[in-house]
């Protein structure tokens, strides 16, 4: 039997197959372009950190165009850099928190989380007075008529903006990193959705978009940050950024502002006169899972 021949009829067929494959690819690309003029440039996206200033400006403008079209209103997308001499720190007074979850909802509104399915960056845990801070006796899904409930106390958990973040270490593609002001950010266009970081985070602070996030136009907060609260695509991870769109412009995060009992404090750890430094000096501090050496910049304290 002859095994190899240049006149083999199969080789002709093969060529045809390759041709039709190319045709198919071309058709797919063409229809893709029709669907969205910007989708190809999104596919060949550059990592945020490697963008030139021109490229960054072009990218931000492209996203503003896309969001404005999608939500039918003007949307700003900025990439405000970290300020020099700033390291953000957060303190939460466990003895004051009443478990009202206003912070949870303020966060959702400020940061454009998906409403259906619901994504929340803050989880308030209800704990038993008799067990103390014990996650095995914590309930994140408490449904109370009235808070605070008797014999219970409340323990909100969100991204602890670790100095030594396990999530950043685990990311296979450098899609998440710690900015100089201590905020851990995610490039939503670079994240591959492997969820290593979700697994690595000891605080349950990272949330995955299991499906296309749903956000109505009137619910949208149009002041957004590229690495922060802009609407996220399906299939990527998101998390608290200390409201970087506010914090980097000198404002308090939404959760701090909304807290009705003043349990949440925020400031610059590098400023010796800041309120956060006063609290760290004058109160007993509790670090969640201190033994893991993640070195959170989120400090729990007890004022009473």
């Amino acid at each position, binding site marked *: 039997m002859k095994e190899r021949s240049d006149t083999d009829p199969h080789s002709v067929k093969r060529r045809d197959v390759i041709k039709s494959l190319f045709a198919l690819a071309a058709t797919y690309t063409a229809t893709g372009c029709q669907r969205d003029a910007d989708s190809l440039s999104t596919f060949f996206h550059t990592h945020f950190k490697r963008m030139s200033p021109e490229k960054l400006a072009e990218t931000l403008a492209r996203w503003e165009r896309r969001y404005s079209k999608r939500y039918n209103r003007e949307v700003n997308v900025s990439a405000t850099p970290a300020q020099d001499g700033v390291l953000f720190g957060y303190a939460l007074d466990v003895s004051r928190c009443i478990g009202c979850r206003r912070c949870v909802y303020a966060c959702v509104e400020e940061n454009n989380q998906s409403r259906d399915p619901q994504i929340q960056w803050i989880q308030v*845990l209800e704990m038993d007075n008799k067990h103390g801070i014990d996650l095995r006796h914590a*309930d994140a899904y408490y449904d109370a008529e009235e808070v605070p409930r008797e014999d219970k106390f409340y323990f909100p958990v969100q991204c602890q903006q670790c100095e030594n973040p396990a999530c950043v270490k685990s990311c*296979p*593609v450098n899609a998440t990193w710690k900015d100089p002001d201590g905020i851990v950010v995610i490039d939503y266009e670079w994240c591959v959705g492997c*969820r290593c970081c979700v697994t690595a985070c000891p*605080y349950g602070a990272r949330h995955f*978009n299991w499906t296309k996030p749903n956000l109505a136009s009137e619910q949208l907060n149009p002041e957004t940050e590229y690495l922060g609260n802009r609407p996220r695509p399906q299939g990527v991870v998101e998390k608290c950024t200390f409201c970087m769109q506010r914090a980097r412009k000198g404002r308090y995060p939404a959760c701090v502002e909304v807290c009705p009992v003043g349990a949440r404090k925020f400031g610059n750890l590098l400023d010796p006169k800041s309120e956060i430094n006063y609290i760290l000096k004058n109160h007993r501090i509790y670090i969640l899972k201190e033994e893991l050496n993640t070195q959170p910049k989120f400090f729990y304290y007890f004022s009473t």
Partner: protein
Amino acid sequence: MKVIFQIIFKGSLAYYLWVLFLLACIIQGLFSYASQFTDGLIVTHMRDSVSWGYYIGNFTFLVGVAASAVMLVIPAYVYNWKPIKEVVVFGELLAVAAIVMCLLFVLVDMGRPERLWHMIPGIGDPNFPSSLMAWDALVLNAYLMVNVVVVVYLLWSAYQGKHYNPRIVIPLVILSIPLAVGIHTVTAFLYSGMASRPYWNASILAPRFLASALCSGPAVLLILFQVLRKISPFEIKDDAIHKIAELMAYAMGFNLFLFGAEIFKEYYSNTHHLVHYEYLFFGLDGKPSPIAVYGWLSLIFSVVAFLIFLIPATRKNFITMNIGAFLIYVSVYVEKGIALIIPGYTPDTLGQIYAYTPSMAELRVACAIFGTGFLIFTLMVRVAIYLLFRQEAKSGGGIAEDAATVEAGSSI
């Protein structure tokens, strides 16, 4: 080339049915994956609490199969068995098919599969040296490449009727030893490096992975070898098969010992970390765990198989030995697919319980990936049998028919 087409497209009825069955598996899974691709991973039962599930479990199991298939052929090589090249070829073919399945399982688990290129050095930005996932992708692809090169070269030599050049093959086979250990160790480190998950954060995890893989991989080969020697001129003596079975007994014994060490530590010290074992075998907060049945199944099968392989009479009896191989395969599959991943996430890092079991979509996609792997393996084995044994074979048709039986057997 024409002959290759004949081998692939012409075969017995059993072969056609087998291939059709695999194609059916693949096609139904493609539909399921299409809806996952558009709607997102919400079609699975994974959620933020349990963010890896059945897909990554299968991936972990198959890394073990890929690693151990080659590790088993190493002693064969070292002790200089006569049919060495055939043993190497089939071990490596199994490794190739298993790695392809591994990569597919990682791909379907990704939220943005079209961004896979972000992991490729040069055009993407792999996070070396700190991300274990980046290392895993690197070693898996290196291992795949080494195996493909060895297999293609061995078959090419056979195709040309020449003896392979040991100076090319032996260094590559030797290189595949550390790589085989490497892929499994790095995969274990992916879990044991997670300080956030005490269930995995144990230094004993990597040795346990190796021990259990040295049971499951040989279990597949054991059955494959029996079929091969029946239907092809492939010579492998009973002694050799019994030797493999004996090695498996040691591996399973060691595996059970390591597991026992872990159980002792958890239950004797009785810390908060015990909850994950409680969830695996019993349940939490008075609610029975939906995976407890798998926990016990895996454990009981392991112990029974260990006894079968330990006692010379049952080890040397082909019926009980094959039952033992089957039990080991199921036991390790359930252990890696269910018992390793899910308890690590339950309760989650904030103590909340989400009872995960795979969704129908996950089962269907997994079925398609296994279909793909078996199809690749089937076709490769048929071609390999033809090329290796064609001088000794009576007729081409006979082999093509027999190869179908090989597959039916190896699918057990």
